[in-house]
């Protein structure tokens, strides 16, 4: 039993690496994608819109397989499995984050931009000091949902053979002819998401100093 838990903790560590690396890259990339989506240039906005449609319109598991195998057929070589997972997750989650950012940015009243303009703020200052702080507060609930989904989506990484928590649990289940490891994995995911949702509650409370 101790050995099983130890193995599962190792699997959890892989899941957490996927989780944090995805957030690290997808959060900023999503903002860039949102900017592209809102671009006044028709070509840029429709290209970005096409990318978002594909990312949201096809299964993540398929994208994962595509990112891992497509380079092999085209270039004769693949990225290593873990890197492929990170690339697939980042481009997928960036699309979802982008739409959340866009909703937040577009919900900021025009008057905030006009006041910034009249006061002489640069565009960058307006975006970083006036718009984004208000956007972050508004998108927290939607982001919470998405991040919780990401925790559970890490389980898909096993599709291309990355031994994350769920794969470890399944292997153990097969070895020991018992479904117990799978239920234990369920508890692991639940605990991780409890932490995620508590963290979001905490941030939302922190941002509650204004309306």
């Amino acid at each position, binding site marked *: 039993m101790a050995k099983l838990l130890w193995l599962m903790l190792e699997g959890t560590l892989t899941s957490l690496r996927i989780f944090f690396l995805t957030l690290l890259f997808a959060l900023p990339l999503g903002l860039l994608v949102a900017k592209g989506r809102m671009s006044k240039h028709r070509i840029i906005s429709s290209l970005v819109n096409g990318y978002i449609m594909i990312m949201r319109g096809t299964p993540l598991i398929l994208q994962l397989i595509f990112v891992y195998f497509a380079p092999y057929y085209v270039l004769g070589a693949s990225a290593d499995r873990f890197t492929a997972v990170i690339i697939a997750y980042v481009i997928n989650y960036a699309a979802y984050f982008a739409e959340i950012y866009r909703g937040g940015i577009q919900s900021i009243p025009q008057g905030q931009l006009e006041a910034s303009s009249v006061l002489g703020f640069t565009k960058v200052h307006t975006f970083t000091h006036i718009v984004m702080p208000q956007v972050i507060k508004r998108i927290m609930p939607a982001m919470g949902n998405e991040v919780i989904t990401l925790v559970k989506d890490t389980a898909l990484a096993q599709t291309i053979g990355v031994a994350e928590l769920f794969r470890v649990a399944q292997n153990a289940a097969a070895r020991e002819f018992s479904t117990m490891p799978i239920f234990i994995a369920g508890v692991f995911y639940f605990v991780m998401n409890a932490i995620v949702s508590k963290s979001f509650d905490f941030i939302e409370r922190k941002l509650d100093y*204004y309306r």
Partner: protein
Amino acid sequence: MAVITVAHVRKSFGTLEVLKDISFSLEKGEVLSVIGPSGSGKSTLLRCITNLEQIDSGTITIGSDTLVNQGVYADKTTISRIRLQVGLVFQNFNLFPHFSVLRNITEAQVHVLKSPKADAADTAMDLLKKMGLSDKASAYPYQLSGGQQQRVSIARALALRPQVLCFDEPTSALDPELTGEILAVIKELATEHMTMMVVTHEMAFARDISNRVIFMDDGLIVEEGSPEQVFSNTTNERTKRFLNRFGN
């Protein structure tokens, strides 16, 4: 010396022409009220002067800088310089909700004028005192009444020491009691010879504080003159009809 000179300004939104050959000037220390029915173009005129809207043709000069010369806009640096000369107070305040009252007033001083933080805070506290809001420096906008929020936004505009302060229907979002609060502040600024351009529906107020009144209708300046002339001695039929509705 003219602080604002507007000559032959035209502006359309699509096929709708909202400003049709507008010309006027505003002298230093003068208070100009712009009155007229909704949709007459008075707010648009103010937004063109504060560069929130771009005109199609005509010339706008602020102080010694030309913002737009016969439809051609100045370069970015000139525009940024001009922008600081003209303050604007909005109808619905547009305070930054995530900043304290103090930071609403210091932010532009620090990041645009590059004043040291302590100096900016001193300026802000002086202005808040003048607005009767010394105790609200650390409050957030949502904790204030509409009248208090509008006074903060006036302080925010004054903090940049503009040559001219523009008001876009500053009391339209306020109840009569709070309206009085704001009008008192504007009146006080007038006694200090602050150059102001006020778009308003408060006729009695316009009459009281202005040196000059412009009546606009349908994108045109119908009449321009002293308050006595426009409010009491007008011979213009359109002006009469408009003022009658206010019981003048």
